[in-house]
């Protein structure tokens, strides 16, 4: 079998670090080749080298057996390399066809764009690969999963032979993930080759033929997926044994900390997102709100933390109604919040770690007095948290949050929220986009908080996390809690059915 892509002994250095150190990646024609590694292992750098964004210091690249010099992305495109980026590069108010032809518009007389011809071709390719994309739909009107297919179509329209998927499932619902896997299989049946960048082992097992593992810039090995277990792959990736099971004692729930009574709230479009929702969270338990994305869990978190307002109903925290209070008042009462989008809400990326760690407490003594900041106290606080929570960064307290890895950014947020020792800790998708090592750490911390007697409200879209971490699971469907089950008395099937609205929970 010939190799369609060969990256041989690639070394790429940045000041201070070797992002790729003698890495070799060989992709066979017609296979799905996974590129596995933790955040910062050098996957993106390697793909950027292949895509012509970086020039390697050493090593050579062969495409279909011929040595090539990829000096910029246009060269990569001409060689038939296409990339489906994690963040879609689409014009929201253009149609599918318009997006696909952008930059390569077919023309008819007087330089007019021949949109019909293009749409026909898009339709043809879409049918060929079973993508089911409407060429005339506007991007803003179609789902995220569909938008991703448009990205794939864009590559196929440009005759790409080698498709790179950069963490494609991060934004998809479980159903869409299954569909994407199917699409990838169709692609290789049609003779395309796929490189799948990911750190999700399940997906590799489901779809990939072979897998190349990177760790800290080094090439650890290339394996056949079939003969390797997830545990073995995880160990290769992290460099030590990883436990997927979250070790914890049975919960010892105490008083009700948070009580939601007939809660109603609207979403951004002013449509009802939460409808008469009732829920109780006890001290000393982890309650997980599970559901398919877009069923009101985001709005639920936002109204509890005060980012958005309720339309009716009560939020009772330790016996006190808080729905009218400001965000700051709720923070001070003892609500901690690990937000879903850590770049948007959790951190000021251009602030240093120490500033970020003081984001909610800067106005209190000892961090400031009479409105004057006390930099020593802020530094001290930060140094202590960095040590205690093992937040790793280039320059310690004065590192800009932007330059830290995702896992360490999340650790910093957790440090900040946990350190305020809130009575209620809300964690929304706390492990999204993180690698196995960081996930393990975060799960341990959540259980630790529970054992300290805090109430933990977890919101997660990952089935594994839902089942492993929580004590009780409240399934949300179209803004209502359709059932509450004990985590140790249920299984993926039951939860899945409840999530799709077709089964009510039995035990409560």
């Amino acid at each position, binding site marked *: 079998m010939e190799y369609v892509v060969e990256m041989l002994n690639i070394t790429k250095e940045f000041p201070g670090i070797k992002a790729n150190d003698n890495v070799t990646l060989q992709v066979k024609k017609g296979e799905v080749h996974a590129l596995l590694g933790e955040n910062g292992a050098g996957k993106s750098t390697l793909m950027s080298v292949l895509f012509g964004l970086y020039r390697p210091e050493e090593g050579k690249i062969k495409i279909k057996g011929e040595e090539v010099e990829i000096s910029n992305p246009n060269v990569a495109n001409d060689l038939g390399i296409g990339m489906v980026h994690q963040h879609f590069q689409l014009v929201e108010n253009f149609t599918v066809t318009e997006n696909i032809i952008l930059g390569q518009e077919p023309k008819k007389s007087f330089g007019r764009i021949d949109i019909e011809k293009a749409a026909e071709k898009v339709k043809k390719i879409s049918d060929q690969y079973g993508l089911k994309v409407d060429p005339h739909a506007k991007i803003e009107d179609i789902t995220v999963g569909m938008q991703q297919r448009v990205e794939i179509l864009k590559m196929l329209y440009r005759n790409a032979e080698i498709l790179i998927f950069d963490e494609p499932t991060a934004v998809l619902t479980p159903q869409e993930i299954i569909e994407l896997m199917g699409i990838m299989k169709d692609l290789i049946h049609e003779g395309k080759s796929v490189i799948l960048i990911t750190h999700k082992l399940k997906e590799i097992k489901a779809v990939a033929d072979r897998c190349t593992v990177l760790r800290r810039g080094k090439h650890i090995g290339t394996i056949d997926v079939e003969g390797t277990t997830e545990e073995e792959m995880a160990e290769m990736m992290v460099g030590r044994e990883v436990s997927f099971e979250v070790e914890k004692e049975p919960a010892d729930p105490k008083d009700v900390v948070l009580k939601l009574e007939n809660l109603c709230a609207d979403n951004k479009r002013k449509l009802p997102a939460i409808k008469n929702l009732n829920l109780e969270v006890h001290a000393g338990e982890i309650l997980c709100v599970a559901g398919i994305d877009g069923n009101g869990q985001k709005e639920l978190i936002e109204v509890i*933390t005060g980012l958005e307002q309720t339309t009716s109903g009560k939020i009772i925290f330790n016996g006190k109604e808080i729905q009218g209070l400001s965000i700051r*008042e709720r923070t001070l009462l003892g609500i901690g919040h690990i937000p879903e989008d850590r770049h*948007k809400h959790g951190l*000021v990326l251009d602030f240093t770690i120490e*500033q970020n760690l003081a*984001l909610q407490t800067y106005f209190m003594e000892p961090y400031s007095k009479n409105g004057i*900041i006390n930099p020593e106290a802020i530094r001290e606080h930060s140094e202590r948290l960095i040590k205690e929570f093992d937040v790793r960064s280039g320059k310690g307290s004065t590192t800009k949050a932007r330059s830290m890895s995702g896992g360490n950014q999340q650790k910093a947020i957790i440090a900040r929220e946990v350190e305020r020792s809130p009575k209620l800790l809300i964690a929304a998708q706390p492990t999204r986009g993180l690698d196995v090592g960081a996930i393990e750490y975060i799960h341990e911390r959540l259980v630790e908080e529970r054992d300290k007697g805090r109430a933990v409200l977890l919101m997660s879209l990952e089935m594994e996390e839902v089942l492993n971490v929580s004590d009780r699971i409240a399934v949300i469907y179209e803004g209502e809690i359709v059932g509450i089950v004990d985590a140790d008395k249920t299984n993926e099937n039951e939860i899945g059915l409840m999530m799709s609205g077709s089964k009510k929970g039995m035990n409560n």
Partner: protein
Amino acid sequence: MGYITDRKNHRIVIPAIAIFLGFLVGSIIMLLTGENPIALFTSLGRGVLGINLGNIGTSRSFFNPRYPGEFVVFAMPIILTGLSVSFAFRTGLFNIGAEGQLLVGAFASVAVGILVDGPNFIILLLMILAGILAGGIWGFIPGYLKAKFNVHEVVVTIMLNYTALFLTNYFLVELPGSTNSKTVELESGLTFQSEFLSDLTNSSRLHWGFIVVILAALSFWFIINKTTFGFELKAVGHNPFAAKYAGMKVELNSALSMAIAGAYAGLAGTLIVMGTFGYGRVLSSFENYGFDGIAVALVGGTSALGSVLAGFLFGALKAAQPIMQSSGVPRDIAIIISSMIVLFVAMQNGIKIVLEKMKGAK
């Protein structure tokens, strides 16, 4: 070389490169139009330092302290409008309205000076306060509209510039004793003007206002770097969502930030009235202090010290213009250089890419 390409030093290196390129382009244009670029630099030297190289070795004095005095007079108001634009920018807002804020500040100061009776010292303070307050209110309007109704501050501030121009013109001529072009002169005790400073600099218009400028720059630095309020403003500026999440009042901070930005610009107006001229002027059009302030903020990297340094740079280019003209060099060259510097600073991403390439090439 290592210093230039080190990312840490970009804050200093990029404006420096932009300034260098600005002067380079200016010199090239002079060469192309048959002028001697040396004249540019001798004019600048004369405008800033007061040293006339042409007079060295002749019986005439080669040093005239009037020029440095006037240079500082040119620089002071644009340092303040630079601080104004910078302050708003720290909260993520574009204050295009420094011009209008300056005009209402100037009017308020002169109106208080003419209309209110009392001990000079008290009136003097009241005049300064009136300028700050009027500019502040003029800045608060777009800030409030932004916070309450999400109206874009650029649109509102531009419109308020015109409003300020015609409104103050209308009221200036209504003040007792005003002619069609200016108000009565302020009493000598009610200005920053100083015989001492004037004598020291060969009867330039240099005045005590520089103390006000120093205090303003210090207050900027103090608020932004040392106070919890400054911490909030920066957080809101960098990421309003995270600021809201952390319990900060994003809207209130936006409105206050614009008000304070307006106060700095208003103070610039006070300085022009009480220092440079000593009376209020009816203007037929803008004098572009506000736009100079945008350039100063951009080149100065929106910091206090940066605004002061950039203010002096643009002040120098302004001060050199009459001298250039008198020595036969078109003054437009100075304007071209100012514009080029701003252009190159605006192209800083391009400069960064070149620096990165240089680093990579080593």
